[in-house]
């Protein structure tokens, strides 16, 4: 399993590397000392597991996750911020307190190996989930549960359950990684989840109005309406 160590303190990285020597199936493909460097390396090296420090210069470990298209498995490593990790809403993630106890490391790695349906992320693969941070709260959002993605400048507003978190990237870039059988570009600004469509009504000028379950009514532009009809065979 390909893993990366992300920590701003060189001694901490060396120590973790030494500890991981006891687990030959974990292959360390790279180390990064800050968020910018880490984001770049994760995209190119596509590790399956990150050992991620929380407090780092130029942004926290959470900031890194929000910037990644495809988030690998994560084990947080932290000296004292376990409260920050506990506040984190995702139980899929584990955390280790520094100095790291070898037994706890073995436990965390065991969980990673078991939970993982060994998915190897590829840059062009369809995204299943996305990491979102809204203020102090973080989530892994399963994309099939998202009703609507709306472009707001350089951000995307997700309509997900009762929450409307912002995602720091452009809609066009994300669109290519969405499941085309589930998501449909309704107009220049919005992408809808077809599973959430309740009713579709004809509008003026060949436009369509799609009413989403729990969500707003979305207008499908004339150009997209033709596509929509073909796709839904109506």
């Amino acid at each position, binding site marked *: 399993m390909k893993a990366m160590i992300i920590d701003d303190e060189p*001694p901490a990285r060396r120590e973790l590397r030494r500890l991981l020597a006891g687990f030959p199936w974990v292959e360390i493909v790279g180390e990064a000392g800050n968020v910018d460097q880490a984001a770049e390396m994760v995209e190119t090296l596509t590790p399956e597991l990150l050992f991620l420090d929380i407090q780092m210069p130029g942004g926290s470990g959470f900031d890194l996750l929000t910037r990644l298209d495809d988030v690998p498995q994560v084990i947080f490593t932290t000296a*004292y911020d376990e409260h920050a990790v506990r506040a984190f809403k995702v139980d899929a993630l584990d955390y280790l307190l520094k100095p790291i106890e070898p037994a706890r490391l073995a436990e965390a790695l065991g969980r990673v190996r078991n939970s993982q349906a060994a998915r190897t992320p590829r840059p062009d693969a369809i995204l299943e989930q996305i990491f979102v941070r809204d203020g102090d709260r973080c989530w892994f959002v399963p994309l099939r549960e998202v009703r609507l993605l709306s472009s707001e400048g350089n951000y995307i507003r997700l309509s997900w359950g009762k929450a409307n978190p912002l995602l720091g990237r452009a809609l066009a870039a994300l669109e290519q990684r969405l499941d085309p059988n589930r998501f449909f570009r309704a107009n220049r600004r919005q992408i809808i989840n077809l599973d959430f469509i309740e009713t579709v009504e004809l509008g003026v000028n060949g436009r369509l109005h799609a009413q989403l379950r729990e969500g707003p009514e979305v207008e499908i532009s004339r150009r997209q309406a033709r596509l929509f009809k073909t796709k839904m065979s109506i």
Partner: protein
Amino acid sequence: MNDTERPITQPKSQRVYWIFQLMGWGLFSVSRFGAAIVVLDVPWMRLALELLFVDAMGLGLSHLLRDFVRRHHWSALPLRRLSWRIVIAAFVLGTPLGIVTQITGLSALHDPASLKPYAPNISFQFSLFDSIVIEIVNSALLYIIWLTIYFSAIAVREHRSAQFKQSELARALHLAELRLLKSQLNPHFLFNALNTVRSLIADNPARAQNAVTRLAKTLRYTLTSPQNELVTLSQELDIVADYLELESMRFEDRLRIELHVPDEAAAVHIPVMLLQTLVENAIKHGIAQLPSGGLLRVSATVQNGMLMLDVENPRPPAPAVTAQEGVGLQNARDRLRLLFGARASLELDLSHPSVTTARLRIPVKP
């Protein structure tokens, strides 16, 4: 003794004073009225008017007395010096009141003739002079009682307010202590240092030993330094150097350090852990936030009897979390104010776009 230290008279205590005055003098009048009606063969209207006049005068004089006593801060006097002042004041006021009482005819209350039926076997022989002296002594006794009650009430009130202040002070001290402890024991630093040590044990055992010694020194200084104690800048610098050495092992080449402290500045007394707090802040909010780290500069000079101590660190473009920095700084300012009053100051200079400077000013003579 200056005026600001006197208990301030609040509207509430003012009202209580008047209630007591009116009730006291009122009861006194009523009881004398009752006695006079029984003993004297005088129309009750005249009796009432005379009593009203005499007791109003008594009340007025006692009010003047109160003003006098307050202006001269009698309540701050020791009991012996207060006692003879009370006696003199009582006679000074008792004399006019006694004379007026005699003139108005109320003294008939004490007239032997009128008392004869109640004590037939005792012979009363009083000259006018005797009567006046008796009235003056009676009035003086009245004022002695009045002043005794007055000072007792003041003593009770001051005792209460002293108790209250004491508990307030104890609470404030406790709070300051707690906040100090919080700012001293920085768990983030502690656990990161331990992690560094663990790593060094394999990398470089000699350095690991060195790190453990320095960590022990830092912890000992942190845990045993009593509050509000002043240390020389050079003593504080010793411990800051240990701390910086540990942080250098953590950050390696990201942390660069410059110290400029001339001997005359090193001898100045500063609050313990204050420079340490500033340096910790500089690392936490400056160096640690920057991917390539930066220069931490501590420089001190002595000018016009003031120690000028500057701690400089590079500032990240978007300063993260300022709340904790606030606690540390606020704590440091509180301690400075307690120790030096307005003569010391601590300012955060953010005028330079990429450098934060904490400027500490402390008088050379505490």
